[in-house]
Structures are given as structure tokens and as C-alpha cells.
């Protein structure tokens, strides 16, 4: 059996572009939130709730855009609650993040199971690809770059906007100031906890979008624990990216290239499901781990990350 190298490469790159936006949405939100000093470890729980909401609302209305709005809404409510406990009540962020994760993990399936006890659901209506018939230019470009749905391109724009926001706008500078030195920011008249609340809420909204994106691009339907740790991986990517948006883009793309390459390799090699293939599934994570001694050394978290602020 011979497989054209170009087909393999097209497969790898188009999978990379299909999967990366999930990490980019959540990554941009978490970068902004962590830059302000609040880490939301419960992101995967919020994503599970949004993912479940996406499926249920999409099944009921047949309209993916309504599902997107609902997913963002659910994420916003949970995010606001988390932000209130972490910022106003100064509860330990890691512990309350894990609590959010557990609630999302359990509640998402309880609700889904209540709505569809038999597991039988209508068909999921995804967002259409940006361009369905590509007639001009080399077909590879069309397959790789234009067959994704519009949210994939929105995620790339979000990276640029987030980078610009954090370095070039006054609110972005305030976000970084309250994460780096809340006392000084406070003295300069910045409402520390308000900025943090906005940053944390923004993060939750992006988790909602990520959960929505997951539905159309990762799985055909909702199951228990279906995100399977991918949400937590976002935290690792941000760490390697040293809390910089463009480097999160780099981390997400390279992680997914490794992921796509190994899954392409496994499917071509015909190992079958239950053997060496699982060893290859570890590669993208081991790849991230191997980056630590290289990038982790210089990584410097915002100085007041995880530290609540009390005026006075």
C-alpha cells in the first residue's frame, strides 16, 4: 500500500487547524484571567457544561448559533460564581477550581441523561464549513485552510485581538497590573477586584465557546467525561507559552501537529485500536513535558497569580 506523502501532510495540517481552535479559545481566556491573577482550574468543568448545553440546545432548536449563545450563557453563569468566590470571598483558587470541575463533570451528564434517558438523540447540526466548493487554486489549500467552520478563523482573530488587548490597550495594561502588583495598581486608582472579575468572566465565556467548538469538531455526541483532560492541557500550554498569546498559538499548533501526525501514522500503520497505538497517543503530552526544561525555565508567572487581593 502506498500513500502519497502530500495526502498525509494535508491530513495532518487540516486536522491541526481543526483541533487547535478549541485550545485557542480557552487559552486566550485563561491567559487574560491568569494575567489578572486568577487561575480557573475548573475550565474543563465549564467546558463540559457548555458542551452538554450545545448538544441539547442544538438538538432542540436545530440552530447551532442559538446553541453557541446558550453555551456561552451557561459558561458565564458558572464563571461569575467562580469569580465571586475566588475574588470577593478570597477562596483558594485551585480548590474552588477543582470543585467547579467536579460539579461540571457530574452535572453535565446528569442533565444530559435526564433530557435523553435512552441516549437516543436527534442529529447534531454543525456550523457549515466556510467554503464548501473550492474551484480555483491548488485544492490542498482549500482542504487545509478553508474547510473549517467560521469559528476556527474567529479563534485566530481572537489570538491577535488578545495580544493587542494585553499590550496596547489601557484596560489590558490594567489587567496585567493587577496580576503583577495589585497594591500599586490600587494606589493608582485601579479597581483591582473589578478588573479581575471582568478578566475571569471573559475567560469563562471563552470556555463556553471552546465547549461549543468541541461539539462540532471532536465528538459526534455527548458522553461522560468526554473532554478527557484536554481542557486541563490548556493550563499546561499557557505555562509553556509564558502567558503570552502568540506563544499559546505556537504551543497549540505544535501540540496538535504532533497529535495529528501520530494519529495519521497510527491509522496508516494498521496497528488496530488496542496495542502500540496507545503508546503513540502519549506522544503529544510527552512532547509538552519535554518542552518544560527548555521553556519552563524562563517561564515567569504573574507575580500575584493565585493570590487574592484585599483593599487596605
Amino acid at each position: 500500500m502506498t500513500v502519497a506523502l502530500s495526502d498525509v501532510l494535508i491530513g495532518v495540517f487540516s486536522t491541526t487547524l481543526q483541533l487547535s481552535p478549541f485550545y485557542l479559545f480557552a487559552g486566550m481566556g485563561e491567559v487574560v484571567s491568569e494575567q489578572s491573577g486568577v487561575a480557573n482550574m475548573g475550565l474543563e468543568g465549564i467546558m463540559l457544561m457548555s458542551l452538554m448545553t450545545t448538544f441539547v440546545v442544538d438538538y432542540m432548536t436545530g440552530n447551532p448559533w442559538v446553541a453557541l449563545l446558550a453555551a456561552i450563557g451557561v459558561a458565564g453563569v458558572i464563571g461569575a460564581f467562580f469569580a465571586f468566590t475566588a475574588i470577593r470571598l478570597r477562596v483558594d483558587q485551585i480548590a474552588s477550581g477543582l470543585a467547579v470541575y467536579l460539579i461540571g463533570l457530574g452535572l453535565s451528564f446528569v442533565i444530559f441523561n435526564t433530557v435523553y434517558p435512552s441516549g437516543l438523540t436527534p442529529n447534531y447540526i454543525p456550523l457549515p464549513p466556510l467554503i464548501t466548493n473550492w474551484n480555483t487554486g491548488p485544492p490542498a489549500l482549500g482542504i487545509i485552510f478553508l474547510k473549517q467552520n467560521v469559528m476556527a478563523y474567529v479563534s485566530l482573530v481572537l489570538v491577535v485581538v488578545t495580544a493587542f488587548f494585553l499590550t496596547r490597550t489601557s484596560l489590558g495594561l490594567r489587567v496585567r497590573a493587577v496580576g503583577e502588583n495589585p497594591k500599586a495598581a490600587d494606589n493608582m486608582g485601579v479597581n483591582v477586584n473589578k478588573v479581575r472579575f471582568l478578566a475571569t468572566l471573559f475567560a469563562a465565556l471563552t470556555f463556553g465557546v471552546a465547549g461549543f467548538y468541541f461539539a462540532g469538531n471532536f465528538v459526534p455526541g455527548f458522553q461522560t467525561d468526554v473532554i478527557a483532560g484536554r481542557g486541563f492541557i490548556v493550563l499546561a500550554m499557557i505555562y509553556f507559552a509564558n502567558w503570552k498569546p502568540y506563544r499559546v498559538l505556537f504551543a497549540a499548533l505544535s501540540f496538535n501537529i504532533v497529535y495529528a501526525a501520530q494519529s495519521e501514522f497510527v491509522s496508516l500503520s494498521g496497528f488496530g485500536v488496542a496495542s502500540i497505538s496507545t503508546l503513540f497517543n502519549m506522544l503529544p503530552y510527552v512532547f509538552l513535558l519535554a518542552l518544560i526544561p527548555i521553556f519552563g525555565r524562563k517561564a515567569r508567572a504573574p507575580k500575584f497569580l493565585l493570590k487574592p487581593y484585599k483593599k487596605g
Partner: protein
Amino acid sequence: MRANTQGLRWLRATAYNVLAIGLGILAGLLVVVYAGGNLGVALSSLFLSPIELAGGSQQIFVRFVLFYTMGMGVGLALKAGLWNIGAQGQLLIGMVMVFVVYAFLAFLPWPVLYVAMILGAALGGLLWIAVPTILRVKFGANEIVVTILLNVVAINFAFFMLSGPIKSAGTALGFPHSVELPAKFQIPGIVSSVPITYAVPATIAMGIILYLVVERTPFRVKANTVGESHETAKYAGISIPRVMAVTMLTAGALAGLAGATYIMGYRYELDIGSFSTNYGLVAIICALVGRKHMLGIGLASFFFAYMTIGAESMALSANVTTYVVFAMEGIMMFGILLGNYLTERRYAG
């Protein structure tokens, strides 16, 4: 006067914890009743099924051993300010190691192999946590990120081992599973009528030993100082890398050991049903509820063992998914954290 305030504070904190747990249970009951379950049946499954001799009581002690063993490790690392989110991964590696030793050191005589299986599990957990420990101590890499990453790797690794090196020859089709350990490699029950194994007294003994070693020696102060402030620790001449390494490696070894007790004392074989149980997260809750105290974690573990078994059978009694228990645990954890906030606020300053 001072003692009185302390006592009041303890009472208040306990009251909040009870309230938080009640809130979680209430949420679970609401779901069950909404799904059409009978309130009386739900309540009796919640409170009574865990102590039924036939089924629940064995489960309680299995989970108590799991939560307590892992929770002590999590609590120990927390004293030094380190979050071991990876207890689930280390637990899984411990389970795998039992069968690796059993398969590859089979030439050893029985008692030696038996001990080697238990020690191998602990060693597996220790090696698994050695990665984040080294990255933390040598490169300053965040242990939360690395332990989370390794949880995903552990599941894939365990699946690989299960589908190849430690796979039972009996699984030609379907999901792979390991061989079943023969009776002489199982942890025996203390009395035949009550299904409590020797793992239970062994775990309690280990808890007391750790209490004496950790809480009653200068080590407690050392670990707490590192946990509070690295600058103070440096000033006091405490070796920060050493405290970090000791607490983290112990935590990994304990979680691996928990894997051995789970397999050798209860499951006897490994299949993917044991992969995503989230016991590692419950161990974190137990460590927090037990206030990182080696004996307090034991009480919390017993309670959560009882509660999770009861809540699961409550869910099943009304045909509700057992995933409701995760939501209940999350609500309890939130409640406990809020209770801590209210207690601290009252007694601050």
C-alpha cells in the same frame, strides 16, 4: 479564654463543614426525587446501604483505604505548598505495577513476590511523581501543570500495558483486561463473615506512624514553613528542595501503594473500569477537609467513603446516573471552602 475561643472556632468550622456536606446531599436528593425516585428509598439507600454486610460495608473500607492512603500524600505535599493533582495517575501506575511485577518477576518465591508486588506499586507511584518533582526542584516547573499532564499520560500508558504486556491471554475480543490474581496473592480478609481485609488495620497503622513522624516532629514546622514562605524557610536554614522532594515522593509512593491495596485487596484484576474513577480528586477533598492533618484526613476519608457509597446506591435506587455523586462532591467542596472563609473572617485579626 484563649482555649475557649479555639474551641468555639473549631465548633463553628465543624458546623460549617456539616452544613456544606448537608447541602451536597440535599442537591443529590433533589436530583433523585426530580427523576422520580422515592424519598424514603433514597434516604435509606444513602444512609443504610453502606453498612449492609453483604455489599456496602466492604466497599466502604476499600474506599477508606484508598482515600486515606492517597489523601495523606496529598496533605503532606500541601503542607509544603505543593499540589499533587496527579494522585489519580500515580494510583493507576501502582495498579499496573502490581501486574508488571507479578508477570515479570514470577520466578520469585511466593512471599517475596507478594511483598515485591506491593513495593513495586509504591515504587511505580514514586517514579511517576519523580518527574514533576525533578522538574519542580531543578527547573522550577509548576507541579500542578506537570501532574495534570501526567494523569493523561498515565491513562494512555496503562491502556498500552493492558493491551499488551500485562494483557490476559483470555481476552481475545472486547476490552482488554489483566489476569485475575490467584487467592494467595490477594490481601486476605480478617474474619470470613465480615469482608474487611488486613489492608484496613495496615492503613490505620500507617496513618498513626505518619502522624507521629510528620505531626510530632520538627518536620511539621519545616514543611509548613516551606509551604508558607520560601523566603522565611531560606532564612531559617531549611533545605527547600529536600522538603519538596521528600513530601512529593512520599505522596507518589502512597498513591502507588493505594493502587496495590485496591487491586490485591478488592479488584484482583485490572480493566479500563478502574481508569477514570476520579478517586484522586476525592483524596484532595479529604486532605482539605482533614485540614492536612494525618489523623484528620483519616476521619475525612472514612466519611467520604461512607458518603460516596451511600450516594451511589441512592442514585441507582432511582435510576439516576452515579455521576450525580461528582456534582455532590463538588458542591460539598465549595461549601467547605465557603465555610472556611466565614470562619476565617469571624476570627481574623
